[in-house]
């Protein structure tokens, strides 16, 4: 399946629920969607198009948080990324996709502790990477967190 055909299938299925499609090349596309539709999109990508879930990456855009869900369609060598922008940075929420695919189990825990994103419906958001005594409410990958530059002579 070529990129145009894949994008056409997605457009036909979701119509106005797509904010924007950026076809970067024959191998890469970025689709902007509403966070409330994430489950429908993921279900379509995973079950109907048989894409493989690569990972989800969070980005701090200063006034909002963005999550990119990356999917690979291996038979055609195409990677499509779904972008969901969470406008409420104080209390970012999005539905979990772990009930559709267990491959998102760890990445949701990581996004929760490094960005502070809540995943509705995911009851297992225990810390994955950070130490147990890490202060609550401090999210290392947000832009307002800057670890102090160290001069070990002073330590």
């Amino acid at each position, binding site marked *: 399946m070529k990129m145009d055909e894949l994008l056409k299938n997605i457009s036909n299925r979701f119509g106005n629920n797509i904010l924007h499609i950026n076809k970067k090349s024959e191998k890469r596309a970025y689709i902007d969607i509403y966070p409330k539709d994430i489950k429908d999109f993921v279900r379509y990508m995973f079950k109907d198009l048989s894409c493989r879930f690569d990972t989800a990456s969070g980005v701090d855009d200063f006034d909002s948080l963005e999550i990119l869900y990356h999917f690979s369609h291996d038979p055609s060598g195409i990677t499509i990324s779904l972008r969901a922008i969470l406008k409420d940075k104080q209390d970012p929420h999005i539905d979990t996709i772990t009930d559709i695919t267990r491959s998102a189990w760890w990445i949701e825990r990581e996004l929760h502790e490094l960005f502070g994103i809540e995943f509705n419906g995911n009851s297992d958001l225990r810390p994955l990477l*950070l*130490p147990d005594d890490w202060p609550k409410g401090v999210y290392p990958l947000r832009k307002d967190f800057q*670890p102090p530059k160290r001069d070990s002579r002073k*330590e």
Partner: protein
Amino acid sequence: MGLKEKILTKSLYVFHLSSGSCNNCDIEIIDCLTPRYDIERFGMVLVGSIKHADVLLCTGSANKMTVPLIKKLYEQMPKPGFVVAFGACGASRGLFKDSYNTGKPLDEIIPVDMYIPGCPPRPEAIMAGLLKLIGKLNSKGKK
């Protein structure tokens, strides 16, 4: 040098601890056991418990979660015991010194007797380092 230290230099028992390393150093250490380098011909052996060890070989950049462990292991090591800081990460935290999850360098957590620099140090460098340690112990005893 007491009798204990003199006996030690004949056959060092090494305990390897990784405090958040990328594995390169750990692989080069295990490589020393393999036939090409064969550290056992110098009487050096890797042991599975700190209570049997003479040398604590510490790789990695002392990740915050491992700091209590490093201190605990150092206390449990029977004295006289020696600490070797391994690689660039062991010496000074290397590339990771500005990370939010890295604490102090190893030599500010426990006293270090020897540094083996490199990223990773070659097996030849490891053996040279450990043999130098034996040499240092021997020369301390002669004073």
